[in-house]
């Protein structure tokens, strides 16, 4: 009884002081070659309003970790506590092609239980936030890649989660659009004060966006290193401070990758 109470209290504390608390999480998949450990004893907190990027080479289990935090899969060991259900944004926009941009957002509102009368104004407001006022009635295929990702961002924000999970959301965009969306995401993150856990394999992207960069090693994924990024906003991809830290992180990342070639 006392232990369950203590546990409940612990959980409440976790919910209020962390947007996400990942504790000793491991995940293994059983494949044809036997059981394979993908994530090994990951411990990571995301504070409310914090922007954290998860960085790593292929096979570090970044996306697996994000799926676990999103609740789409269960960890093999360890616990994950989040403040409510997180919103998730994918590399592909994942907008529903049978709905207009506005209706995609409204579906998210509807599934969250927002009354019908409030959905349309709320959707317009979110489109305004991602600077797509005219796009309400547009079908997904009528929008450019960057616009689709912004609608996807608006839809994720429509869930009104305290935590936004992003799985390489800009990886498929051209460099110019990506750069603009970095600025956009930074602006929206600062305006909404949502916590972000952002997965990428692009070092500059990680440094440019985050307050904290977490480097994962590969096979299995472990937390290899962490950096605080104190470069003031607005940041630019070409800022020397961004470049300097990127060089340092890249060195470390390369070291992690090199280890795999040695045996």
């Amino acid at each position, binding site marked *: 009884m006392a232990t369950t109470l203590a546990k409940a209290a612990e959980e409440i504390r976790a919910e209020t002081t962390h947007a996400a608390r990942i504790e000793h999480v491991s995940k293994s998949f059983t494949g044809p070659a036997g059981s394979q450990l993908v994530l090994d004893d990951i411990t990571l907190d995301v504070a409310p309003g914090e922007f954290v990027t998860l960085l790593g080479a292929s096979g570090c289990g970044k996306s697996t970790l994000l799926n676990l935090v999103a609740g789409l899969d269960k960890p093999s060991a360890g616990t994950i506590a989040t403040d409510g259900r997180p919103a998730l944004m994918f590399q592909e926009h*994942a907008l529903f092609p049978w709905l207009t941009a506005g209706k995609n957002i409204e579906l998210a509102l509807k*599934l969250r239980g927002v009354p019908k009368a409030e959905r349309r104004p709320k959707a317009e407001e979110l489109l305004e936030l991602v600077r797509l006022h005219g796009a309400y009635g547009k079908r997904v295929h009528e929008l450019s890649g*960057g616009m689709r990702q912004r609608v996807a961002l608006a839809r994720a924000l429509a869930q009104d989660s305290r935590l936004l999970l992003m799985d390489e959301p800009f990886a498929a965009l051209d460099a110019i659009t990506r750069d*603009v969306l970095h600025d*956009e995401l930074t602006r929206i993150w600062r305006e909404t004060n949502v916590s972000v856990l952002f997965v990428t394999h692009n070092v500059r992207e990680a440094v440019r966006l985050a307050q904290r960069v977490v480097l994962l090693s590969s096979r299995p994924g472990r937390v290899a290193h962490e950096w605080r990024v104190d470069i003031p906003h607005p940041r630019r991809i070409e800022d020397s401070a961004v470049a300097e830290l990127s060089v340092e992180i890249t060195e470390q990342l390369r070291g992690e990758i090199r280890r795999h070639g040695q045996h």
Partner: protein
Amino acid sequence: MASTETKEAGDSQDLAGLEAGLDALETTAGPVRTPVRQVLVQKVLPPLTAVLLVLVVWQALVSFKVVDDPSKLPSPSAVWNEVREAWLQGTLLDYIWTSVSRGLLGFVFALAIGTPLGLIVARVRFIRAAIGPILSGLQSLPSVAWVPPAVLWLGLENKMMYAVILLGAVPSIANGLVSGVDQVPPLFLRAGRTLGATGLRHTWHIVLPAALPGYLAGLKQGWAFSWRSLMAAEIIASSPELGVGLGQLLENGRNASSMPMIFLAIFLILIVGIAIDLLIFSPLERRVLRGRGLLVKS
């Protein structure tokens, strides 16, 4: 502090302008409506030419006495007279309506049964393993095979016609929905779940709309099967109480050894089958595909 704020406001303005520029550059103007003339030339003219060509060859076969027996190949004018006569007697529309009303009503029944059946087969693993193979197997069974047992079970009544239509169309409709559901990109399912859609809401808001193109293809095929099975049933099982549909018309023509009547019946069966597809299913399918940007230019 004030200076950084103004700097940021300026940056935000910059960003808005930059973004508006990118959006404008990357989106193309909406599709231009094809002019009527072009539609006529590209869409209407070719099939009309083909039909005309067939008529010319047909008339030539008769005129140059290549086929010299009117009981084997009637002239186009003899068939036209048959049409006129049926029209003047007021029976032409009756023939068509008898069959079309049967076909459409049967199809609606098939829809009402095939849709939930397809959904259950697609979503419940045990049921899929149990009846999935039978369902796809039934699709390759010619529905005319059902006519003799249906006559024995249900007698020479409308019920029997509907039974044959159902046995022909339900597997197509159900299978269409099953393959539609199977082809839903997993990304949509995941996206739906992260948005909080579970159970029936997941099915209604995500799975069904995503499966719609496959389902419509199944409907189209289901209609073709309905119409074929109905014609088979009408030809084999004719009885005075059943009224004269297009199938019976064909059978009557054979009994009366009237080649013009047989030709009339065949043409009507063909034309009705095509017309229903062109008037109902094709526009529906085009609308759905165009809305999703899956129809580039047709």
